[in-house]
């Protein structure tokens, strides 16, 4: 630990944690390696693929473009916490039923991004879904099934969907 290390305190998935971190450590490495929350993944480390998508104070962020020290005092939610709270349950069920995941590496990020979309645009159309999820790379599915799953949830939640 260098002389520049800092103490940070944050609420992660509802639990208060305090750790001493290097200023250069990214939030995603902090979550995965210090807190052993391995649900969010590292895909590109330069903000393109979306595999490391987590929530900070309610907003989705790329864990690879956000430093752990920046999260000091923040509320951070990951796939583990959002699963536990049940907030993603209908999306997760729809993804599983529609086989909107194959290898699963993108899925936690894809789910968190999908939840953010539906919070902001409950009646998202297929085109809206495709546009919003364009920051999340999936090599396996070709996206069609993901769009189906998110659309199913939008409709089931009463958003009706649009053509």
């Amino acid at each position, binding site marked *: 630990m260098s002389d520049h290390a800092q103490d940070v305190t944050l609420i992660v998935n509802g639990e208060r944690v305090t750790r001493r971190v290097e200023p250069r450590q990214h939030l995603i490495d902090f979550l995965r390696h210090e807190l052993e929350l391995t649900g969010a993944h590292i895909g590109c480390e330069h903000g393109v*693929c979306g595999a490391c998508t987590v929530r900070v104070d309610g907003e989705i962020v790329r864990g690879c473009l956000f430093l752990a020290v920046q999260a000091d005092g923040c509320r951070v939610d990951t796939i583990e916490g959002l699963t536990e709270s049940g907030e993603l349950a209908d999306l997760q069920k729809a993804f*599983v039923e529609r086989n909107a995941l194959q290898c699963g590496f993108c899925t936690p990020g894809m789910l968190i991004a999908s939840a953010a979309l539906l919070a902001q645009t409950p009646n998202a159309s297929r085109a809206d879904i495709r546009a919003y999820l364009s920051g999340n790379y999936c090599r396996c599915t070709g996206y069609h099934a993901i769009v189906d799953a998110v659309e199913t949830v939008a409709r089931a939640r009463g958003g009706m969907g649009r053509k």
Partner: protein
Amino acid sequence: MTKADGLSPLDRPNSYIGRTVPRPNARRLAEGRGQYVDDIKLARLTHVAFLRSPYAHARIKRIDSTAAAKSPGVLRIVTGREMKEVCTPWVGVLSHLKGMKSAPQYPLAIDRACWQGEAVCAVVAQTRAEAEDALPLIRVEWEELIPVTDAAKAAAPGALVIHPELGDNIAFQRELAVGEPDAAFAAADVVVEETFHIGRHTGVTLEPRSILADYNRAENQLTVYHSTQAPHMMQGIFAKHLGLPETNVRVICRDVGGAFGIKVHTYPDEMAAVALAVMLGRPVKFVADRFESFVTDIHARDHVVKGRIALSKDGDIKAFEIDDLTGIGPYSVYPRTSGIEANQVVNLVGGPYKHKAYKARARVVFQNKTVMCQYRAVGHPVACAVTEGLVDLAARKLGQDPAELRRRNLIPDDAYPYTAPPGLVFEGLSHHRSLDKLLELMDYKTLRAEQAELRKRGIHRGIGLASFIEVTNPSAAFYGIGGARISAQDGCTIRLDPSGTVTCAIGVTEQGQGTEAIVAQIAATAVGVPMERVRVITGDTEVTPYGGGTWASRGAGIGGEATLQAGKALRQNVLAVAGVMLQADPGRLDIRDGKIVDADTGTERMPLEELGRVCYFRPDTLPKDVQPELMVTRHYVQKDFAFVFTNGIQASHLEVDTDTGFVKLLGHWCVEDCGTVINPQLVDEQIRGGVVQGLGAALFEQCVYDDQGQMRNANMADYLVPMAAEMPDIQVAHVITPTRSSELGAKGAGEAGTAGAPAAVMNAINDALAPLHARVAAQPFTPEIILTALGKA
């Protein structure tokens, strides 16, 4: 199966074959509870980072790691020369690819680096960050050498030879002439030709290559957690090159974050990580970062193919001819070699058609770029683009509808078995039924009418078709006969547990395709239990029967058949015991929904848990000569054909903006025939995912190199992959022609999407551009390529 039920094993009551059921492992992944290699931590874990060559070709004169060794957290720095003492080199050749040659490759370069990104020195530290901190402190004295980058120049006489001991840069060459092709071309009414460029691209698995090796000196035991498609193959390779008994090497493969052929090869940095674990006697983890992935994951394609086609004036195809040149980097990749893709191109060009004459030449050359090897659909997209591009050019020249020209020339559905000009035997394909189904699915006539209307308004839409054949269920003819220790057979061990549940361990592996789901479906069907009672174990060399893993679309066809036979054998054993316990004829009993029943009436006689209880805990109540065998293993290898071919056809509908050169995909359709469909949803999603990989290759993806062998776009901001917004919905349908080479009848479906999509897109673009007298043949079809074709660049 017993005769009493009179049903095929696939149609049994409560059969899961042909049913869409969710994958048992999907929920775990959706909840973030997957376990990929980077998620695993072991006690005394260390991390390795590699110093990589900044040059495509350079001599390593001296490495000074004095300063780096003092960097915080650094445990050990190892050069190629030191590692050579622990890990022997390998040469990627196969004896059935006649004349193939390559040079010995080491985990770390010793005297010379041969591509930008080749690892030359390893730093092991407490953390990955500390290992990376030390890299710039290593002083390497380089002597730059002239890089050989252009494949045509590399192949030319007098070229600088990358490995002088090999004599030239030709790794492999194949020539073929069948059915007097020269005479066919001379006699043809119509000959059209084109030169096709298929860009160099790569897999971009979202999970980078990852490995965690641990070595226990006391037991001489190596345990490797590996993101791989072929655990047993890697077990053999680690054992051989590290000098360990094969049984002392265990490869564990838990969740794999995408593979597509990227993770079925021997990578020097992964071998180095394993060798370091042996050297240090403690766990070493290597996870490639994205920049490393781009310059060290295998690349694929990069073919330039001159092709021509001969036809009669009525439109009968008489002959194809191709000349393929591909550059594969400085080494043929071990153990599958880098000659297979070009070999496949020679095998597959013209594949759907009934012409008799064919001439081909393929040359595979060394160059100073990242190595190339098998990536999803190996050779298929190249062969399909050449074949289908030529067929469309011919249709245009003849003034025929491209669908009708195909109908005229596709091998008839009643012509099987059929031997194609390169000697491939097709057991049973369905080109015509597939074409009919596709045209109906996409409403071809309506789209053509709409296209004509829109053209009047200056809107340029195109429709492109691409028929294809696909190599699946490979026999040992793929690799084994060439000397590679790659298993063509797979085994399934299936066990009835005391509580009436079933556990399957199988050699094929899961990377998201749904292998575990279809194995559970087949096992549940064959034994007669609900799928929830089946647990499937894959990816552990110490637990599963020896097998090849998952590649070349063999998971369902090979692994599925092994499961079916194992499940049937277990069912017979269970019924034999049940007959004794119930004093009934086993032939009149059945297992349905986890219960022993009367086969005729379905009346329940005994739950399986009761049978399990007696067999395991009260065998004393059974007659002395009855020994229940509630665990059986069955193996399967496909021996009837070199490969069990499938077929299909795709269509692309798109619009070209002739001012900007941008292509907007409007629709995509695929009809394919993978034989017995075990889980329709999983097959459809294999097709869709494969199509999008093909669309990426067609429109976006390219590893861009300069003439010094530097990759210029080795990051995800500059190397474009398909994202959701640019991709269309994809309609999928099936024709079903089961293979008779297995009882299950399943063929593969993994390559089909990627095989045909680029050709369909190319043909659609050229269809759109036809009124403007422009055409393209160089993938990816970027706006620049299209504007150049339009004379607007």
